[in-house]
Each structure stands twice: as C-alpha cells, then as structure tokens.
C-alpha cells in the first residue's frame, strides 16, 4: 500500500460524504491508503485574487504544513497531498504557488504562522485524485474493474476550477480528456457535450438560485441532447448545482428530463464491484439507482 496524504475539506464530511466514501474504497482497491492529517482546517474555498492579500492564504498554507508534518512523522510516503473537491484543489494549489513565487508574501505568511512548530517549506505537491489515477496509469483502473459499465452513456462535466486557470488546472483547458479516459477504463461510453466546461453558477446558488437553476437546465439539456444518461462531476458544488437543484429546475421549466448526477468515484466503486456501502448512491439526488438497475449494472 502506498500511503498518501489526503485533504478532505469541509463538504466531503457532509453533503459529499458519498464522494469521500467512494474515493477511500476505490483508492484502497488500487493499493493507495489515504491518510488524513490531524487538525486540518477549511481551505477558504476560493483563492484570494487581490495582490495585497496575505490573510486568506494562511488557511490553505496551514493545511499544507499539516501534510508536511505528516510526512516528517513518517506517516505518509511522499510530500504529495490529494484532494477531491475542485475548490479545495484550486485553493490549496494556488496559495502554494503564491507562497513559492512571491517572496514578500511568503515572508508575511511565515511571520503570521510563528506559533507553528515548523516552518512550511513550500515543497508539498497538491494533486487531484484524477491526477493520481492518471499518473498510476489507466491500466491499473482497468485491472480493478470487475463489472464494466457497458452501455452506460456518461457526460463528463469538468466545470471551472478543475481546469482553470491555465497552469493550475489538471488537464488541457480547451480539450480535457482525463474523465473521458477514466470512463473508457471503466467500460462506459463518454459523451462529449458543449457545456462540459461551462460554470455551474458556483456560489451564486446561495442568493441567485433561479439563475443557477436556469444554468443547470441548459447544461443538463445539452448533455441529454448529446445522448448522455448520467453526468459525472468532481466538485461538490457542481454536484449540488446540477443534482439537487433539479427540483427547482422542474418548477421553472415545464419540459425537463431529469438526469442523475454522480461523482466519478461512485462509478468507479460500481465498476470495481465494491457494493452500495462504497458507491453510496443513496446520497444522490435525483436517485441514479433506477437507471443503473435498468442498465443491468445494479441488482434489484
């Protein structure tokens, strides 16, 4: 087993518990033990873009320091940290870049963290779980598949923070393939669609729910027209803004076909034959299980 530091972030423990459960189970199947640092804190969710901001980089950097401590204690095998939530990924990675590229702010960040036992070196590498899978090779994923997702037409939805900005994103900004490659390894059919990288409306869902529902309507309609039966995502906010929001979409659009939205790791758990405990489809809304049963991928 490779021991890898894992930063969950807040939502993975609540709304997106199914994302975490399915990830831990699939990683174990692939020979990766995910080790959570003690005393991690919220990453801040969004990267601070103003040039004079120091304060908002403390939370992400403190998390990276926890990873470094874990590595120093010999509890993980590298200075890599894996994330699941696209917002955590983006925030940790970008603050790490600020720390390493801006010597003035690096000093200020360190000065503000004087109570820590060690100073952060800047050497932690922030990765997304999809990158780990790609690095290990798709053959490893293929070998773990016991039930290929044959005949399942899946739209990979990337959204914004997994791909942007350039240099931070995990794949080509215009033509990403990492989720398509994963789907192929799982035996499913990837369905490309025009809005796969369009923003879901993000945090506007708090006070502009109707606008976000209309965006979801457009994205899901596009995916459906392209032939998809199910949509996958790698971000708990995308999941919320495309999944549970469909009850709002139905109120606003008379003609609307709902579509299940799941995390990519849930499909992995299904294809790896890890059972409902790992796939955790009961946490999704709309319920993806009727479709999966219809496809013969899930038992009655």
């Amino acid at each position: 087993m490779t021991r890898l530091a894992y930063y969950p972030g807040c939502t993975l423990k609540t709304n997106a518990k199914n994302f975490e459960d399915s990830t831990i189970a699939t990683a174990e199947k692939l020979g990766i033990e995910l080790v959570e640092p003690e005393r991690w804190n919220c990453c801040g969710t969004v990267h601070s873009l103003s040039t004079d901001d120091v304060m908002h980089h403390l939370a992400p950097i403190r998390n990276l320091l926890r990873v470094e401590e874990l590595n120093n204690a010999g509890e993980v095998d590298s200075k890599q940290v894996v994330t699941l939530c696209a917002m955590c990924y983006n925030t940790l990675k970008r603050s790490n870049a600020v720390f390493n590229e801006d010597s003035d702010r690096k000093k200020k960040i360190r000065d503000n963290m004087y109570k820590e036992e060690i100073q952060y070196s800047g050497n932690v590498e922030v990765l997304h779980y999809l990158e780990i899978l790609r690095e290990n090779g798709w053959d490893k994923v293929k070998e773990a598949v016991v039930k290929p997702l044959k005949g399942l037409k899946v739209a990979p939805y990337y959204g914004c923070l997994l791909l942007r900005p350039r240099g931070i994103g995990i794949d080509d900004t215009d033509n990403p393939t990492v989720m398509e490659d994963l789907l192929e390894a799982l035996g499913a059919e990837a369905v490309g669609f025009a809005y796969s990288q369009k923003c879901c409306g993000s945090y506007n869902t708090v006070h502009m729910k109707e606008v976000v529902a209309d965006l979801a309507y457009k994205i899901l309609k596009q995916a459906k027209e392209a032939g998809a039966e199910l949509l996958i995502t790698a971000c708990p906010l995308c999941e919320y803004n495309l999944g549970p929001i469909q009850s709002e979409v139905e109120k606003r659009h008379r003609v609307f076909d709902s579509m299940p939205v799941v995390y990519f790791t849930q499909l992995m758990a299904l294809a790896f034959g890890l059972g409902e405990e790992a796939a955790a489809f009961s946490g999704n809304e709309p319920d993806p299980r009727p479709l999966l049963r219809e496809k013969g991928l899930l038992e009655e």
Partner: protein
Amino acid sequence: MVLRMEPGNKQFKDRVTELSGENVDLCFQCGACSSGCPMTQEMDYLPSKIIRMVQLGLEEALESNTIWVCTTCFNCEVRCPRGIDIANVMEALRQLVLRNKYDRVNLDELSSEELRELPQIAIVSNQRKLTA
C-alpha cells in the same frame, strides 16, 4: 473627440491596477471574455465593457452589478488573447467596495432549511466573495 482623464480617473485606475496586478491597457475590446462568460444574461455591463471603464478610470464600474454576478470561473481569463486575468480585475473592483464595509448578501434572508441544505463550500465562498 478627446477623452480627458481627470486626476480622479487616474487614481481609480491606478488603484485597480495595483490591487489586481493587471494591465488593463492591453485590452483591445475583442469581446472574447464576454462571449464566453456564463453569467452575461444577468449583467448590466459586459465584462469587456467593465475593462473599458477601468481603462478610462470610470469609477461607475463599481456601481455595476457585473462585478457581483461574476462567478470567478476564469473562463474569460483563458479566452483573453491579451493575457489579462480579467477575474483579478473583477476581484479588485469588488474589494474596493467591500473594504468600505459593504455586504452584498445577507444570510439572514435565507430560511434555516435552505441554509441546512446548502453545502458549506457554497456558503463560505459566497460570503468570501460577496461580503466585507
């Protein structure tokens, strides 16, 4: 026609440049940012127009709802052929307003059921971007 920049205009433009770290004068108004923006239907001014306003030092940019509707999805940023990080400019404009103790969103207006349902990342990011 001659466009004259008053000292106030220059001061505003310099402040936005400083906070964003972006040189808005690079913009030649191609509109690629606006065409790729997912939120334009809710905006009073297109993102490219906001950039133009900053070029001219027009403080009215701060009164536009565009800066509040922006989701910082960075689509404009990867589209810009002049390499301007437009999201940084939007953030600088928001910051100029927020730093005067302004809250765009008040969570008290949401029901407890809505608050319970929303993922934490939605609430935290919303408050980070839209409140003082």
